[in-house]
């Protein structure tokens, strides 16, 4: 009798479980008519400040809410709650990214069909979130002008999972000698044709373009849902 090991082909997607939950979430969001956008960036790129301003600006005309991932503290949720929008914290402990199941669990008891926009702020990290679909319809990757123009070249994978790039803290561009053209070139190198918005959540420069993009996306997704069989 032979003791040679036998090779068994299996072909399984390792993140299938996450992808299945993400697909369920996407369908649930579509059925409820809520547009879900997520934000990824390094720590300190200004996700929470951008989200706070977004909730305030869009909250004047739309029903908005947010889920925020954070390793340990609830500071971000407390900050965002000042906008008056419903905000929930997903404390991930030592986990460096959000997974679809965490988003799913945190939705318990929320009437999604009473919302227009739901924002999901990922944990500050440009590596790990790239592997996990959260069921969102649009993913923003945010890099601040203080991080350097070549950031996209260092993290091509996350740029290839995101839909829109945001250059944040543009009010500081002159102070840090930010080269706008070089940054756009870096983004174009790793993700040709990627939509890019430069903005400042402090001065509101560029915020109109950003909120207009979200509004268009909301209307487009509802039209698609309405025309679907």
């Amino acid at each position, binding site marked *: 009798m032979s003791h040679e*090991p036998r*090779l*068994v082909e*299996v*072909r399984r997607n*390792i993140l299938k479980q996450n992808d299945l939950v993400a697909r369920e979430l996407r369908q649930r969001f579509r059925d409820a008519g809520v547009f879900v956008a997520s934000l990824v960036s390094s720590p300190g790129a200004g996700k929470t400040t951008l989200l706070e301003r977004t909730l305030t600006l869009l909250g004047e005309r739309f029903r908005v809410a947010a889920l925020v991932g954070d390793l340990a503290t609830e500071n971000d949720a407390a900050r965002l709650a000042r906008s008056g929008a419903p905000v929930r914290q997903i404390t991930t402990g030592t986990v460096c990214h959000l997974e679809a199941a965490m988003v799913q669990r945190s939705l318990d008891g929320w009437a999604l069909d009473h919302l227009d926009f739901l924002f999901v702020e990922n944990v500050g990290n440009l590596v790990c979130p790239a*592997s996990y679909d959260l069921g969102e319809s649009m993913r923003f990757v945010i890099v601040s002008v203080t991080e350097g123009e070549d950031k996209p070249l260092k993290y091509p994978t996350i740029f*290839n*999972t995101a839909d829109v790039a945001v250059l944040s803290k543009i009010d500081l561009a002159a102070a840090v000698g930010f080269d706008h053209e070089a940054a756009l070139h870096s983004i174009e190198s*790793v993700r040709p044709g990627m939509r890019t918005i430069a903005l400042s959540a402090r001065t509101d420069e560029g915020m109109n373009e950003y909120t207009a993009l979200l509004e268009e996306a909301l209307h487009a997704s509802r039209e698609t849902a309405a025309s679907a069989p």
Partner: protein
Amino acid sequence: MHELSIALSVVDLAREEAGRHGGRVCAVHLRIGALAGVASEALLASYEMACAETSLEGSRLLIEEVPVVVYCERCEARRPLESLQSFSCPECGTPVSRIEQGRELELVALEIEQ
């Protein structure tokens, strides 16, 4: 670092498959794309930890790294990408955004002993 949670998923899947086929798993084969967002070295380091005190303890992890292949609209052909820092056709230089291969994160095979 999310490789430990990936390693735990690999172990769960491999145990499930081993249960179906019977026998003891002595090696696990994966395919990982260059755009999957997973570092092979970190995954190898996490794998041993993820296997501890399971039926996979002592098994080997073998990783096939899958390069990125893009589709060039101008050449109307699939091309291997030369650098993740430059999404352009290696033949004609046209920017490319269609990714045909390189996001894989798959368990492809198990080596099983009776």
